[in-house]
C-alpha cells in the first residue's frame, strides 16, 4: 500500500513511516502542508495521513486546496490530530471528502488496521 504521511512533527512522521515500512508498505513523508499538497497533486496514494495542526499551511488548508482542484474525489484521506475535535468540525471535514478523523496518540497498529480498508480499493 502506498501511504503518504503529512506531519510537521518529524519524530512522529518518521516513527509511522518506519513502522509501516517494516510492515511491508511504501511510505512517503512531507513535513509541511504545502509540500504534502504538491505530492498529492502529482501522484495518487492509497491513503494520506494528514496532521491538522501545522503552522502556515495547515491540514485544513490542504483539504481546501484539494477540494478546489477536485483532487479530493479520488484521494483517500485520514486526518490525525492531537487536539480535541468537535462534532461540528468532524462532520465538516467528512462533508468535504475526508474519510475519517482520528486522534493522537494512536497505537500504530490500530492506525494500520484502520488503513487496511484502503488496500484493495483501486483508485482511478
Amino acid at each position, binding site marked *: 500500500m502506498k501511504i503518504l504521511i503529512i506531519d510537521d512533527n518529524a519524530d512522529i512522521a518518521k516513527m509511522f513511516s518506519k*513502522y509501516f515500512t517494516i510492515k511491508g508498505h511504501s511510505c512517503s513523508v512531507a513535513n509541511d502542508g504545502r509540500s504534502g499538497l504538491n505530492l498529492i497533486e502529482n501522484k495518487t496514494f492509497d491513503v494520506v495521513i494528514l496532521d491538522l495542526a501545522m503552522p502556515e499551511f495547515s491540514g485544513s488548508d490542504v483539504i481546501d486546496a484539494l477540494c478546489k482542484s477536485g483532487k479530493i474525489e479520488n484521494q483517500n484521506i485520514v486526518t490525525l490530530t492531537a487536539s480535541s475535535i*468537535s462534532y461540528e468540525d468532524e462532520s465538516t471535514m467528512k462533508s468535504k471528502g475526508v474519510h475519517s478523523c482520528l486522534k*493522537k496518540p494512536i497505537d500504530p497498529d490500530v492506525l494500520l488496521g484502520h488503513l487496511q480498508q484502503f488496500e484493495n480499493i483501486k483508485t482511478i
Partner: protein
Amino acid sequence: MESSEDAILSMDFDGIVTSWNTGSEKMFGYSSKEIMGKSIYSIYPTGKESEFDEIIAKLKKNERIEHFETERKRKDGSLIYVSLSISPINNEKGNIVGIAKIIRDISGQKRASAYARSLIEASLDPLVTISAKGKVTDVNEATVKITGVQRENLIGSDFSDYFTEPKKAREGYERVFKEGFVADYPLSIRNSSGQITDVLYNASVYKDDKGNVLGVFAAARDITERKKVEKLQAEQTDTKEKLQAEQTDTKEKLQAEYTLAKEKLQLEYTDAKEKRQAEQTLAKEIRQAEQTLAKETRQAEQTLAKEVSEKLKGVAKDEFSAMITHELNTPLVPILGYCKMLKTSMLGKIDQEQLEAIEVIEKNAKRLEALIADIMDVRKLDLNQLKFRIDDLSLDEFFSNLDSDYGKVLENKKCQFTTNPYAKNLVIKTDKSRLRQVFDNLIGNAIKFVPENKGKIETGCMKENNSLVFYVRDNGIGISQEKQKELFQKFYQIDTSERRSIGGTGLGLAISKGIVEKLGGTISVESDGKTGTTFYMKFLS
C-alpha cells in the same frame, strides 16, 4: 472541676480572681499561684477591658450570659478566640457576691470557618444561599459586587428582590426545593444603580448530616459578554438588510427619475442629437451615482464587519485548553509508537529485562494520556464547555457492547461480569459516548478493588418510580461511610499510599458525577464499608 478542658474560674466584683482550675492554667499559661488574688484584666487584650463592666451590668439585671464570643490574651501575649458562659455566685441570702466563668477555646473553629469563607470568597461567580422561605442567608463578595447591595442588607432580604423578573426567580428556587437542583436557569440581576446583568443560575439543595434540606446553594454565571456577541451579530444582519433595502430604494428612485427625465426629454427636445447627448449624460450620471452608492455600501459593510470581529476577539474562548491538549498529546505519539516497535521486536530482538523496562515506559505514557484527557474533561466541566450530543440509545445495544468489551477480558482474570438491561427494546435519549465514559470509569474502579480470582462485577438498569436507575455493583473491599463523602472530589483516591500503584487519575468519579449531572441525573454510592460497592445513576424518565 479540676479535670475540665474548659477554663473554669471565678472572681469578685472588682475582678480579683478567687479560683483558677488547671484548664485555666493550660489555656492562659498563668499558674493558679501567679494569678489568685490578682486582677482578671491580665487576660483581657488591650481595648477589651470595658467588656468586664458590661458583664457586671448584665449580671446585676439577672441576665445570664452564654456563648459570648470574644478574644482573650494568654500570658505570652498571644490572642485566642473564646466562648464565655458567665453566671453569678450568690451567698446564702441570695445576694450576688461574685462571678463564675466557663471559657472554651474556639480558635480552631474560627480558623476552619475562616478557611471555608475564603474558599467561597475566592469564587468570581456570585454565590448565595437561600432559606426555604426564599430569604438570603449568606453571600460572597461577588454577589455584593453584582447587586451593588451591602452584605448586611442582602442577608435576610428576599432573594427574588434582585431580579428583573422576581416571579421567575421565585419559580427557580421553588423548583430547586422540588427537584433538588436547576441547571443553566436564566435570570437578569438588577444592580442598585439600575444596571442589568444576564446570568445563568446553577443551584442545588444542601443538607445537614441527617439529610434534612437546609436551603438552596446557588451560583450565577455572568453571560453578558455572550449576549453582547449575539446582539452584535443580530445588529450586523439588521444593518446589512437595511443597507440593502436603502440601496434598492435609491436604485428604484433613480430609475423612476430616469424614466421621468427621459419622457420629459422626448417632449422637450425634438432635436435627435441633443436628445441622445442628454440621454448619455444622464445615463452616465446614474451609473456614477450607482457606483458611488455601491462603494459606500461596501465600505459600510466592511467597517461593520471589522468592528464585530474586533469585539468578538475580546470574548473569552478556551484557547488555552486547546493548546495544552495538543502540546501534551503530541510527544506521546512517538513515545508510544517506539515502545510498540521495541516491544514487538520490530527493531531487533530484546531480552526480558529490556522488555520489562519498555513496558514500564509504555504503561506510564498511557497513564499520562489518560490524565490529560481527564484534566481536560474536568476543565471543560468547570467552564461549562463540555459538549454533549443527545441521541437515541438502545439499552440492549449499550449493555451488549459492555458485555463484549469487558466479558472476555475479565473472564481471563477469573472475574465474573454480568449485564442486566432493564427491558428489551428500550430506547432512551442521552449522549451514549459520555454515558459509556461513566460506565468505563466505574467498571475500571471496580476491577481494581475486586478480590483476585473470585471477583464479581454486575452492571444493569432498573425502573424505580419515575426514574431509570443504572448501576455498577462489585464484590470488592467496599467503601466506608466516611470515605463515601469525599469520593466524588477531584484527585480523591481511596487509599493514597498503597492503591496508587494500581493507577488511575483520581478524577474519574468527579468527572462521572459532572457528566451524570449535566445529563440531568444524580449519582450516588452504597456500601457497608466491608464487602462490595454499588454506584447508582438515576435519571428521571
